[in-house]
């Protein structure tokens, strides 16, 4: 008997709850540092991104109207499913260059971060909302609402924990997201899409593209139906492009500049606030 022929995985995009190939028909050959495996990764295009924005917009009102309890349970569910997929992420993370120990730590942290944010789902609004004592006979209160559709550029240097750290605060706050995965370490992000797909996350709430940052950054930050853009990286020219493009429709640019995502400080409710709006309502008090 000869050696068994492996069944290799085709890495595709994740848009609107489906796994399409890129409409561009273009691929990037990705090889691991030890040159044992060669993978074709979709080179996502502007059109793929635009399709993803349509899906995210369509999903936005439904997701933001889910109860906080339900969103919390779904985030927890993502953590559960990720836990069950440890082996696959171990393989991919080590293929992407992590040591076994590093990979283990990254998976642990990614799961814990999901559980952490799951617990915030029904608390951040309580902590950051208030009744305002206006000097008139009115009942006045302020609370948080999702900003809407968020385009996110995931960190390049840490794929699984990076994706989780960027996506969790966006979606726990009722936003929908389109994320561009790490260009140098794309495998985990697409496998993470499979985790999301099996975690009761409604179609369109999370969309994940692979491709070239240099090609897609402009589109991610200039789209007129995107309400916020989250950028993770340390390139001054890229940051300037994102902030400048944000002016087109006054989208909110959120810049995470060269952060260490495994630091515990890189989680917390203030990351949720980055993609929230404060709404204030007045009503007269009287008969």
């Amino acid at each position, binding site marked *: 008997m000869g050696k068994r022929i492996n069944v290799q995985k085709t890495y595709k995009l994740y848009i609107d709850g489906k796994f399409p190939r890129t409409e561009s028909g273009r691929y990037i050959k990705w090889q691991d540092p030890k040159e044992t495996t060669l993978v074709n990764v979709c080179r996502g295009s502007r059109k793929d991104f635009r399709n993803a924005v349509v899906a995210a917009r369509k999903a936005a009102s439904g997701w933001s109207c889910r109860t906080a309890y339900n969103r919390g349970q779904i985030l927890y569910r993502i953590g559960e499913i990720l836990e069950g997929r440890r082996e696959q992420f171990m393989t991919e993370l080590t293929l992407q260059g992590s040591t076994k120990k590093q990979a283990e730590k990254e998976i642990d942290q990614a799961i814990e971060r999901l559980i952490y944010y799951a617990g915030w789902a029904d608390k951040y609004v309580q902590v950051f909302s208030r009744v305002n004592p206006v000097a008139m006979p009115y009942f006045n209160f*302020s609370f948080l609402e999702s900003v809407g559709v968020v385009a996110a550029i995931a960190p390049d240097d840490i794929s699984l924990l990076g994706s989780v750290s960027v996506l969790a605060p966006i979606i726990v706050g009722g936003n929908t997201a389109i994320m561009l995965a790490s260009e140098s370490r794309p495998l985990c992000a697409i496998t993470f899409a499979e985790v999301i797909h099996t975690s009761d996350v409604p179609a369109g709430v999370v969309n994940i593209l692979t491709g070239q940052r240099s090609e897609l950054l402009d589109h991610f930050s200039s789209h007129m139906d995107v309400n916020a853009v989250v950028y993770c990286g340390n390139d001054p020219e890229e940051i300037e492009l994102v902030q*400048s493009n*944000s002016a087109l429709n006054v989208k909110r640019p959120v810049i995470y500049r060269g952060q260490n995502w495994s630091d515990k400080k890189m989680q917390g409710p203030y990351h949720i606030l980055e993609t929230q709006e404060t709404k204030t309502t007045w009503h007269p008090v009287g008969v």
Partner: protein
Amino acid sequence: MNYKTDWVYNPAPESADHVRIQERYDLFINGKFIPSVKNAYFKTINPANENKLAQVAEAQKTDVGLAVRAAKKAYENIWSKMDPSERGKYIFRIARLIQERAREFAVIESLDGGKPIRESRDVDIPLAAAHFFYYAGWADKLEYAFPGRKTQPVGVAGQIIPWNFPLLMAAWKLAPALATGNTVVLKPAETTPLTAMKLAEIIQECELPPGVVNIVNGGGETGQALVEHPDVDKIAFTGSTEVGKFIMKTVAGTGKKYTLELGGKAANIIFEDAPLDQAVEGIITGIFFNQGHVCCAGSRLFVQESVAETVISKLKNRMETLIVGDPLDKNTDIGAINSKAQLDKIKMYVDIGQKEGGEIFQSSCNLPKKGYWHAPSLFTGVSQSHRVVQEEIFGPVLAIQSFRTVDEVIAKANNTPFGLSGGVWTDKGSKIFALSKAIRAGVIWANTFNKFDPSSPFGGYKESGLGREGGLEGLMPYVHLV
């Protein structure tokens, strides 16, 4: 009823005798009044009669540089190091002195900007004092504002304010910046510099350390110099969406923080189960308050079809009783349009509205011969695609549409790039909550409109801006959380 003969008021003018306006105002830099390097001045006029009120120094780029340097020095050496409770006491002093001189401020605000004395006296000036009073109290309580984090001031704030609420906008900007330990260079609007210069007098009187607040007057170029200055750490801007976008582009890549309060085109929604007479008053307040020079004005009216005819008829009657004229008359409801440029813009839109097929109604009031005036106006027969429905006019012009269902009106209300404010009128509580959640805007007035308070956060969704001013949220733009 003939409103011109049957509905007459005797004049009730507020006296302006006690008001001191100098012939010339200089720049306020490092605690002193100094002329601009070029010795350049521009005049500010009373829009109600086009008479010159004063000459005001026009800050050049070099002047802005001097102001920023003074602010930076004051930040590093004094203000950021001061005991926060001492900082707070200075801000309390400012609040108190505004209250003491409220009458003088109100008259000058109406003279310089054209707004009715009733509004400057009852809204602008008291609220300005209240803002300082509110934020003064925050200065030594910041550790309670952001759970789990500590705050640090940002540095030098460059603040650019509009002409529609001159002193009030100065207060919105200055109070939270000072309370959190920042120093400021403030640029008032070109057409309304006077109350800011009066505020500079108060700031001197309060013995605020020199350089903590600097005030430079001028137009767009002065503002641009401030935005571009490398030592300005934060920009706070209130004004048009167009300029807001320009500022975002300018500061891209610089690491400067910024907040933007931009334009609006608010939907004011009247359901058939609303208290209609109250709603009509709300429509009037929504669009004609301050001549409609309000970014959050209820400039798009949506009336449920079953009551549309009644509401529009009541509204037209009520418009006929609005008194348009002398801003210093205590009976006046609608004052002068702030500037010739703004009047031209309003007229342009009224023209466009008619050319696009809208039906116009204007109250039959007599407009004074001199000065800049516009009659309260409304358009019917317009739809979502009309420019008077889509674009911000910033004047006393209302666009009316009708609707049948809740879903329809939500879709129409949100069909705009703006998202500053919105209004809902109904007696049904659950409908209020449904609508106030569905409208994508930062401030929702339910069974009321155009109410403001220092403790209440204000600011927009979408192209209406970034960040909030007022309330606890209003501290956030002026601190780094560590």
